[in-house]
């Protein structure tokens, strides 16, 4: 299967590690033989229609900062759009960084991939948050598949759990802790009784939070995930601008103390129960949703199966890359079935 990889950051590189180390198992167990025919990063593109040597690409990336510096396969002047137009492949993996203002460049990349007949696996939440209904419609129209397991819950199969394991049932509401960084900050504040700013610093030191932590602490990251869950799992058509969002920037230690006294914790909860919201809320400490540190947890309420909670690590390069692999195998399985129906 020929793959174009757009974005070669932590996720992209983790994915190439998985491809390298699990090649034989993937081939033997799943008949999956990935060939990365192009990688595009900020510096340009590397192309080899016979499949790039991923070890070599990693070395070039680390040494030169861009795969385009490769002396044989690198093309500094070629960007994602022209690669998608000119290189033949079955799949594009969109792993550029999230932009929630207009979804770019991911949104254009996904549209072009569809338009040129490529299936898409994205780890980039931006395009989905901005234009989820548009993208699913376009995918269907172009008869290609769109997969995005890595956008919610990282390696924890939250979307698959709700979509597949609860198939047939109707999910009526969901509540979740969907951002590890803010959960770490709130846990730190509660347990160590430190201020918000101090807890944020510590999260940044540990690499849990970005230098610009806005996306996380203002609840935007959680909101993008709510958009994805609402559209994909609960069949609601809404985008980021329809979510009521408030973050944890103004949480005071006193509020946490008051909650603790009642046997409760304050968590940043994303909910879909009627109107989609993201806000700090009190929940009981025995509620299975009440997880600490960087963990994620989501509770689905379904009509017949009742309340289900799934807990796991929500981010990280190799976790997200494993979600991408899952999506790729799912696409391979779907394509194979479409090509040849087994009796």
């Amino acid at each position, binding site marked *: 299967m*020929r793959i174009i990889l757009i974005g070669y950051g932590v996720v992209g590189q983790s994915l190439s590690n998985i491809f390298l180390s699990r090649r034989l198992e993937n081939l033997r167990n799943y008949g999956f033989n990935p060939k990365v*025919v192009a990688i595009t990063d900020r510096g340009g593109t590397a192309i080899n229609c016979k499949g790039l040597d991923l070890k070599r690409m990693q070395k070039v990336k680390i040494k030169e900062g861009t795969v385009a510096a490769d002396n044989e396969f690198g093309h500094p002047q070629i960007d994602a759009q022209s690669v998608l137009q000119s290189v033949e492949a079955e799949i594009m993996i969109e792993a550029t960084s999230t932009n929630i203002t207009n979804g770019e460049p991911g949104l254009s990349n996904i549209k072009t991939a569809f338009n040129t007949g490529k299936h898409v696996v994205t780890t980039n939440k931006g395009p989905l948050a901005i234009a989820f209904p548009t993208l699913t419609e376009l995918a269907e129209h172009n008869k290609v598949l769109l997969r995005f397991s890595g956008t919610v819950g990282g390696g924890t199969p939250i979307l698959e759990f709700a979509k597949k394991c609860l198939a047939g049932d109707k999910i009526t509401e969901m509540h979740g802790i969907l951002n590890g960084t803010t959960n770490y900050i709130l846990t730190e504040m509660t347990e160590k009784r430190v201020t918000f700013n101090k807890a944020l610093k510590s999260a940044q030191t540990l690499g849990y939070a970005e230098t610009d932590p806005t996306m996380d602490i203002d609840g935007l990251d959680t909101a993008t995930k709510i958009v994805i869950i609402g559209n994909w799992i609960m069949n609601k058509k809404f985008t980021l601008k329809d979510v009521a969002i408030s973050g944890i920037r103004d949480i005071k230690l006193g509020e946490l103390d008051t909650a603790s006294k009642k046997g409760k914790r304050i968590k940043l909860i994303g909910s879909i129960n009627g109107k989609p919201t993201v806000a700090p809320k009190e929940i009981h400490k025995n509620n299975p949703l009440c997880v600490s540190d960087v963990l994620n947890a989501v509770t689905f309420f379904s009509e017949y199966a009742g309340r289900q909670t799934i807990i796991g690590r929500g981010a990280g390069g190799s976790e997200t890359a494993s979600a991408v692999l899952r999506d790729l195998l799912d696409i391979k399985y779907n394509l194979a079935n479409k090509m040849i129906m087994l009796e």
Partner: protein
Amino acid sequence: MRIVMKFGGTSVSTGEKIRNVANIVRDNIRIGHEVVVVVSAMGDITNQLIEEAEKVENGNEEKIQEFIKKLFEKHANVIDVSIKNKNLKEETKLEVKKIIDELKKILTGICYVGELTLKTKDQVLSFGERLSALIVSSTLKDHELESHYFTGKEAGIVTDSKFGEANPLMNFTTHQIIQRIDPLIEKRIIPVITGYIAANQNGIVTTLGRGGSDYTATILGVALDVDEVWIWTDVDGIMTSDPKIIKEAKTLAGLSYGEAAEMAIFGAKAMHPRALEPVIKKHIPVRIRNVFNPKNSGTLISEGAEVESKEVVKAIALINDVSMINIKGARMVGAPGSYAKIFDILGKNKINIMMVSTAVSEANISIIIRRSQLERAMSILEIALLGRNLGNEVTAEEYVSVIAVMGANMKGSLGVASRIFTSVAKKDINIMMIAQGSSELNISFVVKEKDGAAAVSSIHEEFNLSK
């Protein structure tokens, strides 16, 4: 003798060459032949027209004027050389200008609409032949011959509306050609007709696609019930092998229709089987001749030619730029439909299978495809077959060549295959795959690309083809 003569693009690419064409026609008229001329567009014009049309589709109106100017100059320069008579020269140029102005309007239209359909493309393509037919006809006049030029449509060739690859309505076409062209021949006027171009029953321009101008020549040949169709090209005829590989390759004097059809894989110098179709039914012989060496009688393609010749092997072709895919899987054994599935997915992905071979044990199948399609073919086969108990291994041999050995007398002759493969084995060349069609006109096999030329040469020698 009544003869349709077709002159290809290289035969009319310059003024001198067009004069040469006129000389050939005049010589044949003088010895009493009746001649109908079919011409292709000059040299590379057809490709230039397609390119320009595709360019203007994306909107670049300013460039059209430049292209039109160049196109006119190119044809005007040819006229300056091919026609000596001053008045005739100016008249012809004026006519060329009229035709090119019409093309300009169409290109501008494409530019504004931003759409190039197959229908419009056929219209654009027709201009190459219209210009060359005009110039050839005028040059004949300059040689004191009477001539009149026609588009395929004017001549009466009617097709269906499959633009880009139209099929003639043969009876209707014959009826019209007899009415329009026959009277001219009677009056000793030489008709010059555009190859490749026709029209549907509503008069909309169509093109004949594969087989091109040769097809026009054979259609006219059948309609006018000629004695022979002559395809003038730039080689002496169809050769025993590619002279670039085998220095001793020689021109074949005679071939059967079946052999000639098999030769289509020999490339541009041979005729497309589609163009042979009309003449096969009417038993009209086709002769391939060299414009630059008209003394040579060329290769005659006719009914029963295989009976007259004794050679078992007539010619050997080397087909490069192909790759081999091997699909292995014990589960394919005895599973009905397993090959159908493989062919189906390759077909749906527009990959043409050139050659297939498999053993009765069915544990594997080998397929030859164009090398440019290898990556796509491998990828889709892996997706469709692996991990699903259909095939457990899909591998490729990228650099291979197919060698096709052909001759109608191979049918029923014993020991031909043995001689072929022994001669190849003597050169220490490994044969990777073998196939023989049920017509028995052809044995094809696959070797590593680096061994291709040596294998061809060993067979050429074994069957004494240079003698």
